[in-house]
């Protein structure tokens, strides 16, 4: 349909990629099923692999959201981890409320940390989080509103490039410090742990794991479709144009503030969803998630995979995290060398990221 159909070899590559993606998706979807096979079965997939893959899927959603902002709209956010963490905290608050009287101190309403920090009653901003729908709303709303406010202020005053990156970094850093404070009522350094159940399901069962896994997978697929719909529309090209020459776009009559804001807020919401799915799977959310290093790591996944291509972002998230998991056990003393070296090699030899390698072969 598009008049901008790329020359033949590239589109064949794209076709190959799509097929690859579909196969990958099916393989992923099969994992919890294979997990049910007896341990001795050759196709058995271990609990560990299922749970860790679920986590990577969440990272992939985060990478996707970052790629939308950075790869397409040119907004290099060094604070995307904050949106992820906020989504996670919203989910965490819900999970904490669900613990109910099963906490150590047996308080019917207050989470344990509030009890031993001497809270008398639930702070107002915790109200409503016992309701699943409300919590889910907050998962997208809180990051979205933060992105809206920050983005509106920043884009309106035409803060771009590194200035924007550093502002977003300052944002996540400030949030980290704030959430570390015990007085904030979010559990301080320890954050939230010891979750019991979600939607009536105990969390430490295979069923719950599989459920969360599928929820994440569906969220990933949906985000991917949404992002690819966006990037292939004219709006996507406006974003690219803004990335390369925002001033010029304004003279064409586009209000770039609105365009960037739309992309940024959407991206933040996706990140929030990723965080919300992540928390019950890893069982903890704490201010460390706000640390600027985490956000930078997410940028790195996208860069390794290939900035400006959605598949690349997903690929990057999976490969970097997969490697990290493997190396931190296989070579606990040397993994930083291997991973650091990999980053160097990718930038030197794969300027388009891993995806460039795949596309190059497909052509």
């Amino acid at each position, binding site marked *: 349909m598009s008049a901008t159909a790329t020359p033949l070899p590239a589109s064949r590559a794209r076709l190959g990629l799509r097929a690859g993606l579909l196969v990958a998706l099916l393989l992923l979807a099969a994992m919890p099923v294979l997990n049910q096979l007896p341990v001795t079965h050759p196709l058995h997939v271990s609990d560990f692999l299922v749970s860790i893959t679920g986590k990577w899927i969440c990272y992939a959603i985060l990478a996707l959201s970052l790629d939308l902002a950075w790869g397409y709209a040119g907004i*290099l956010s060094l604070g995307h981890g904050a949106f992820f963490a906020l989504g996670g905290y919203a989910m965490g608050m819900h999970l904490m409320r669900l613990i109910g009287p099963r906490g150590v101190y047996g308080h019917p309403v207050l989470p344990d940390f509030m009890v031993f920090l001497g809270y008398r009653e639930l702070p107002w901003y915790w109200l409503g989080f016992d309701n699943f729908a409300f919590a889910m709303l907050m998962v997208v709303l809180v990051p979205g509103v933060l992105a809206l406010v*920050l983005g509106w*202020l*920043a884009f309106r*005053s*035409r*803060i*771009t490039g*590194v*200035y924007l990156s*550093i*502002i977003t*970094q*300052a*944002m996540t*850093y*400030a949030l980290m*410090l*704030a959430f*570390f*404070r015990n007085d904030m009522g979010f559990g301080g350094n320890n954050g939230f742990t010891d979750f019991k159940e979600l939607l009536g399901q105990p969390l430490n069962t295979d069923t719950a794991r599989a459920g969360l896994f599928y929820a994440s997978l569906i969220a990933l697929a949906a985000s991917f479709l949404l992002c690819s719909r966006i990037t292939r529309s004219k709006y996507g090209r406006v974003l690219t144009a803004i990335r390369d020459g925002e*001033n010029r776009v304004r003279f064409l009559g586009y209000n770039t503030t609105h365009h960037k804001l739309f992309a940024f807020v959407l991206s933040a919401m996706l990140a929030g969803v990723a965080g919300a799915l992540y928390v019950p799977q890893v069982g903890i959310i704490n201010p460390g998630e706000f640390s*600027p*290093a985490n956000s*930078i790591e997410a*940028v*790195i996944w996208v*860069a*390794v995979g290939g*900035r400006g291509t959605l598949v690349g972002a997903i690929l990057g998230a999976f490969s970097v995290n997969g490697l990290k998991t493997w190396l931190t056990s296989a070579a606990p*003393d*040397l993994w*930083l*060398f291997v*991973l*650091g*070296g*990999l*980053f*160097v090699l*990718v*930038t*030197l030899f794969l*300027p388009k990221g891993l995806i460039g390698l795949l596309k190059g072969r497909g052509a």
Partner: protein
Amino acid sequence: MKHTLLAFLLLLAAALPARAQDAFVAALPGLAGNFNAQAEAVDRLGALADPRAIPVLRALADGRLLKLADNSLVIRDGTATTDVLTGAATEAAGTEVLRINNRVRVALRGALGRLQLVSPDPAERLAAAEAVFRSRSADNVPLLDAALARETVPRIRDRMAIALAASRLLASDPAAKLLGVEALGASSSPEARSVLLEARAANPDILPQIEAAVAAIDRRLAVRRAAETFFQGLSLGSVLLLAALGLAVTFGVMGVINMAHGEFVMLGAYTTFIVQEACRGIPWLLPWSLPLSVPAAFLVAAACGALMERGLIRHLYGRPLETLLMTFGVGMMIQQTVRLVFGAQNREVLSPPWMQGTLMLPFDIPVTQNRLWILAFSLVVLALTVAAIRFTRFGLEMRAVTQKRAIAASMGIRTGRVDALTFAFGSGIAGIAGVALSQIDNVSPNLGTGYIIDSFLVVVFGGVGSLAGTLVGAFGLGLVNKILEPWAGAVLAKVFVLIAAMIFIQRRPRGLFAQKGRAAEA
């Protein structure tokens, strides 16, 4: 020197009644007892005014007083040991070092202070006046009176006067007390205030005078506190400035997002450590190891920077964001290398004597020496950097190359060399920052990580490419932080600073010292 000391000791001894001799001997065994007995013995020795007590008490304070198996005490001096009573050299076999605790240390300070009030060494007298002031005993009044009468050095006199006032406050004579209150109220030291407050309970009769004196001190202290806060802000600013300066070159001028910047700072700190270890063999050199480290750290970091630029970054010009990925990777590797070579633990970098302690500026404003040095040092480094960039041919070529690489080359500028030198220069400055940071922070593989965020914030807040912006940014953030800290607490102050910086950038979207005009849009 030795001669005068001897004469002085004789003089003191001659003035003593004979029975004191026995008291000295009688007090000694207490020094080998438990902490209680020790403190008591020290007090007694201090009250004796026997010159022989001085070396014994000093030895006890320094951990050089040993107990022999037969319970007699000896003093170790280097390798030699001498008997406390006879002064004869003895064998040190089977000895046990006498240990003390804080309580004994407090007693020692008071005792030594009393004994040394009339020492010929002015430094000792000053310390003694200070010690006597802190030990706060009514018994000191006559001693201080006598010492004050002989004292000529004004600084010591002042100190003695305060000590005397404090001692008088404890005395029973009401007139003396009032004198004491008055004298203390005229000072501006927090310790004097503390003494006054302590005295409130025991002296209800002169409470109004005491309160007035405290209020007078408070007024002076408020001014002093403001000055102190200001200095602390400057000092924090100077640290930020140092950490950010290298980045202002590699990032501000060259546009390379160098995530390994912190690691270069860390390398500088480790170089300081190595230079110090190398100097350990040559004792007279040791205090100078820090100045020696400055060129060494510059060279080490610059060499690493040049290597990184030539080997890696040069392939990425025109793709600035990729440098983020690459330098992040390099940073990881540098950090782990250091961890494997030096271990994950902190390394100890000593402060040279001239950087220790607190200096009193006029109006009794205390500034810590090391901070003062770092402040001065940061300004020097800034000045040199500005000079190098603004006023040298190298600086011109550096700016030309980073603005338009290909065109600079067609003007005959050897861009490769300029790039390598520029990056080496920026990295070298980072290394120098490491030397300074080794004086206030951990020397550990994580050293740099703690500064990278602040550094980027400072450079960006000031305006990329503007050294003046970096300067103002660093000091601005430092001051605001320190002004907020007292009422917001350290954590919130930092949060507020970050938020303030974010809001401020709204007003000046390209930093404080933004490049304006057409040029900036090109």
